[in-house]
């Protein structure tokens, strides 16, 4: 690791990528500070939150308005420092880029595709081809080396794209939704290969994804973006336990309600915007009256009823169905009411209750099913 970096990184995980990017694109502006250690950092966020923008700026394909990029392990570690007029073109940065589509060069066979990078960086033909063959072996495509991309399945093509990106030994690997264009079955198989290959990779990986499976199974750290700004940054376990935005909660499959504490007992959270209150079973101890809080509810803990339920649940609201999706025998039902909720019910209930969008129902949540964290 370079001297520049050793000095700049007092943390136990040395900072291998140190970037600050200020990018303007039309109405949109991105302002992102990122310090990453070797390993996989997932970048998550709603559509248009600036994930792709950040990646292209790091790769040198888009010019930021201000900022800097330093990558300790790269042959030229100083990639961008606009104050000092440094701005390496993409072909002199040491990045590997994989997009949703494989975009293999269609006129080259797989070995030539993967050898393109080493050749471009001056490696002799034989050495480049040997290196390419090795990379193809590593992603399980050794026997397809002489095939043209046209003859590959989408999963094979995407693995070849990964091999191509890694064949130049990049200091920074950028993956922009690398599995999103694959059909579900192929996606699982390819994810397994990707996860294995990433564990062997000794550089910094930035993985953009919308898929919770990717985030939970491959990343060491999750960074959430929204509107070009970081909204949450933590380990997968952190985020599952304490999602801080609706998007993060959705990724981990929870309902998130932000509001103000009215200390109890019972502790109540007055949900922002809505007139509704959520009754909890929390101890009043930890939560000061008037403090901000985030309440989370598991969709499976939301019950729906045709008539207003009479029983024990403390939280009961009239709702309208906005959406029904099914996965196996369970349906996820979007509900609009005093608070927006997602409920998970059985397929049987869907038919029985006649749940289609527009149906009016009652939703209930037991106080014991509500988790609260300071917000």
């Amino acid at each position: 690791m370079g001297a520049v970096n050793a000095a700049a990184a007092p943390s136990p995980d040395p900072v291998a990528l140190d970037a600050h990017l200020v990018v303007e694109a039309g109405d949109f502006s991105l302002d992102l500070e990122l310090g990453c250690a070797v390993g996989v950092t997932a970048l998550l966020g709603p559509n248009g939150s600036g994930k792709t923008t950040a990646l292209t700026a790091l790769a040198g394909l888009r010019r930021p308005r201000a900022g800097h990029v330093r990558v300790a392990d790269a042959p030229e570690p100083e990639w961008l420092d606009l104050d000092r007029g440094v701005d390496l073109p993409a072909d002199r940065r040491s990045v590997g880029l994989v997009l949703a589509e494989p975009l293999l060069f269609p006129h080259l066979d797989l070995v030539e595709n993967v050898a393109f990078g080493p050749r471009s960086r001056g490696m002799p033909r034989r050495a480049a081809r040997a290196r390419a063959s090795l990379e193809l072996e590593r992603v399980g495509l050794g026997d397809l080396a002489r095939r043209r991309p046209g003859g590959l399945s989408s999963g094979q093509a995407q693995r070849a794209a990964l091999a191509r990106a890694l064949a130049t030994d990049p200091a920074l690997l950028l993956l922009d939704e690398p599995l999103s264009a694959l059909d579900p079955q192929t996606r699982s198989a390819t994810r397994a290969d990707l996860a294995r290959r990433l564990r062997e990779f000794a550089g910094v990986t930035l993985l953009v994804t919308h898929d919770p499976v990717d985030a939970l199974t491959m990343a060491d750290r999750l960074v959430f973006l929204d509107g070009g700004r970081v909204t949450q940054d933590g380990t997968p376990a952190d985020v599952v336990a304490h999602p801080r935005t609706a998007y993060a909660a959705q990724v981990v499959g929870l309902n998130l309600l932000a509001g103000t504490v009215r200390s109890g007992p019972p502790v109540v959270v007055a949900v922002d915007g809505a007139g509704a209150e959520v009754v909890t079973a929390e101890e009043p101890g930890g939560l000061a009256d008037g403090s901000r809080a985030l309440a989370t509810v598991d969709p499976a803990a939301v019950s729906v009823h045709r008539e207003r339920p009479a029983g024990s649940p403390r939280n009961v609201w009239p709702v309208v169905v906005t959406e029904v999706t099914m996965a196996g025998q369970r349906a996820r039902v979007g509900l609009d009411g005093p608070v927006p909720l997602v409920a998970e019910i059985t397929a049987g209930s869907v038919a029985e209750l006649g749940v289609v969008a527009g149906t009016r129902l009652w939703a209930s949540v037991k106080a014991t099913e509500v988790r609260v964290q300071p917000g």
Partner: protein
Amino acid sequence: MSTRGRGGRVPLLVPAGLALTLVALPMLALLLRVDWAELPTHLSRPVVGQSLRLSAVTTSATMVVVWLLGTPLAWVLARSDHRLTTWVRALVTVPLVLPPVVGGVALLMTYGRRGVVGGWLEQATGLTVPFTTVAVVLAEIFVALPFYVITVEGAMRGLDRRYDQLAATLGAGPLRTFTRVALPMVLPGVAAGSALAWARALGEFGATITFAGSFPGRTQTAPLGVYAALEQDPQAAIALSLVMLLVAVVVLGALRSRWVP
């Protein structure tokens, strides 16, 4: 086409058939008027061989220039988003809709003895351009280059920019990206553009006769040969026309599916 509803199509089939006749009948008539028995004799007239040879030489020279200069221009146009690009593209396109005779006049104003470049060129080197084979090539380039550039640029613009970007992240500079990625990927477009440009150069008449005149063996290309022979030796003109028709059909055969925009 399924036969159902064929009846309802008659109002369309009649004008369509008429349109087809207007285009196809003359070509058929040309074939009918060929004196097949005497064809070898007519094909051996000097005007035939001489003008075809000259057409082969000049269109070959034209294509070399078109490839070497037109391909980089197409790439620069395809990848530039400078606000001037639109204007440059429009400028390059003008000869497509400019009457060739006007092109010939313009070339005369440029390379003629009293032309913008021609006068200076003659003083400096003693070379004059009009009425030479070079003039024929310049006329052919003027009319053919736009066809090539527009076709190839279209293909190159259709090329996903992310291929260039990926090549850059893999360490390829602009020149390597152009030669190793962009060009190989648009080869079908290059083929189509080349065939179009070549056909246009081969058929060029107005600009050539205006700017290069009609000198057998020097500036009298095949179309000018047909025109000259028509008065003197109509059967030679028909024979030469037949050869050109054949060439046109072969070119189209080679283009086939790639033709339609």
